[in-house]
């Protein structure tokens, strides 16, 4: 078990390192000169040259990468050329925002998906099942941002129950946070929930075909009971994997949702900084996003291992 843990962590570290290299390589070919953006219109060539030197853009890529990496291990994401402020601090606060958003989105998704999926499976050949899986299909087919726009028009503009966008400020009460959270979380979660529901359904269907479910029935457990006692835990194993992937997808879905609801999370930060060619920031953001995805996978991996003794054995 210990060995397997260390092994996993080593692999994880390796993957992250590889990812960081890819990110750096990819972004260092971006057109648009950060130095120029920093200086604005009509800066003279030597001003630019000076600015570049100041930003260390004149040094070889490898050196720049190593420097960046060196900073990262000390938690220093570098200082933005455009805003002149340290990237790390802002990343932190933006990430927190996005994390809250995604967390609540995932919560919504799960709350939607599990009952929907299970019912759709248990009523597979009955009208209810068809209805449920049908509705989840429709849910998937709606673009997230469109769902967001519609939610805003109805609940913010027409009914004025919730703010149309924005985020709570430090110091505001929890109520304010909730108010700002409801619509985005719905927009994010309902769509992902529909996706998740499909997987829950097929996982439960698979489980219901298992021999040991038949054994459970033969023991005298009612179908529902058998499903609760034996089925769901088994179904959870594959669903976990998907759930992990979904979280990753949401992380990116958040980019769009944050734009729709003008939430200043990681996603909107990404768009801003891409637009201003704020390389150091973009690198940081993409790295954080990718890191998050990888981390999620790792956690899912570990959770599964703890749920499934066979995997525990294998490792």
């Amino acid at each position, binding site marked *: 078990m210990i060995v397997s843990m260390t092994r996993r962590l080593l692999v994880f570290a390796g993957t992250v390192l590889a990812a960081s290299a890819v990110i750096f390589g*990819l*972004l260092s070919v971006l057109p648009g000169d950060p130095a120029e953006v920093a200086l604005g219109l009509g800066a003279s060539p030597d001003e630019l040259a000076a600015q570049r030197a100041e930003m260390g853009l004149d040094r070889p890529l490898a050196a720049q990468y190593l420097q960046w990496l060196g900073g990262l291990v000390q938690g220093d994401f570098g200082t933005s050329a455009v805003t002149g402020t340290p990237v790390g601090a802002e990343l932190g606060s933006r990430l927190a925002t996005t994390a809250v958003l995604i967390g609540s989105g995932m919560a919504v998704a799960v709350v939607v998906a599990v009952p929907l999926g299970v019912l759709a499976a248990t009523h597979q050949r009955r009208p209810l099942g068809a209805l449920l899986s049908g509705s989840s299909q429709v849910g998937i087919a709606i*673009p997230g941002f*469109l769902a967001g726009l519609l939610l805003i028009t109805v609940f913010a503009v027409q009914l004025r129950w919730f703010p149309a966008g924005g985020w709570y400020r430090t110091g505001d009460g929890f109520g304010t946070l909730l108010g700002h959270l409801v619509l985005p979380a719905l927009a994010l979660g309902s769509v992902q929930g529909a996706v998740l529901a499909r997987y829950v359904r097929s996982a439960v269907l*698979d489980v219901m075909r298992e021999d040991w479910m038949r054994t459970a029935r033969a023991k005298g457990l009612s179908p529902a009971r058998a499903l609760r006692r034996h089925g769901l835990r088994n179904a959870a194993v594959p669903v976990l994997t998907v759930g992990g992937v979904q979280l990753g*997808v949401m*992380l990116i879905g958040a*980019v*769009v949702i944050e734009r729709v609801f003008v939430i200043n999370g990681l996603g909107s930060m990404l768009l801003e900084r891409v637009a201003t060619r704020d390389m150091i920031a973009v690198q940081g953001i*993409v790295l954080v996003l990718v890191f998050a995805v990888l981390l999620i996978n790792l956690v899912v991996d570990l959770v599964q291992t703890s749920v499934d003794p066979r995997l525990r054995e294998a490792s």
Partner: protein
Amino acid sequence: MTGPQRTAPATAARRPNTGILVGGGLVALVVLAALVSLVWTPHDPLPVVAADRLLGPGDGYLLGTDPYGRDVLSLLMYGARISLLVGVVAVAVAVLIGVPVGVCAGMSGGRADQFLMRVNDVALAFPALLLAIVLGAVFGAGVGTAMIALGIGAAPSFARVSRSGTLQVMSQEYVTAARAAGRGRLFVAVRHVLPNISGLVIVQSSVAFAIAVLSEAALSYLGFGTVPPTPSWGRMLQESQSYLASAPHLVVWPGLAIALTVLGLNLFGDGLRDHLDPRMEAGR
């Protein structure tokens, strides 16, 4: 070494289920619209007619006109082309990259497999949309970049699927038989593996296609999608959101087009999955 066993269901013999029919129908509808738009659209979708801005449905324009005075119906038909193009190219790219990798990994096994899958994990960590945004910034936003990015972004999932499929095929005795008969890896790959994982790949493709259509919309919304004046459903949505109050129909039509297409693709994919899954036999 089990006891007598029942003959497996005759996959090929079964008639397609409702999912395939309905889904296929919807997709066919979109394809038809796209094809027709090649030769005929009610109006020319490109030129701006300031005089005819924002007309409601009716009066000469079946579904009304957009803020540029262009016929919405014509735009929708033309947009179908783009959506399909994006989907097809993205899926093609994903398949061309993902399937070979997956099959190689699955067939070679051991260290090579380990390595390929590690690489795949790294790739998996770059979601398609993120890739599209970054690549859009690198090579300039546009439908071309978007398609490729979405394709590359989807490739890892294809690699996964085809790998697991390949592993299953490789464990089958008919592969052992082929090797015992002196057939080489290539033959096994082409004659045994590919045909047997094709089902999986097609299902995955339909899913990826749907995702691509949705992503095109999202990208256009973020300004990384199709470049004007080329009509695209995504951009129609993006352009019309500020008219949501004054001219809601502008949002309704492209939204509906996207939803139905995706719905069709997913229904088709699920239908196909069930169709190919022997265990779904019972009750059908």
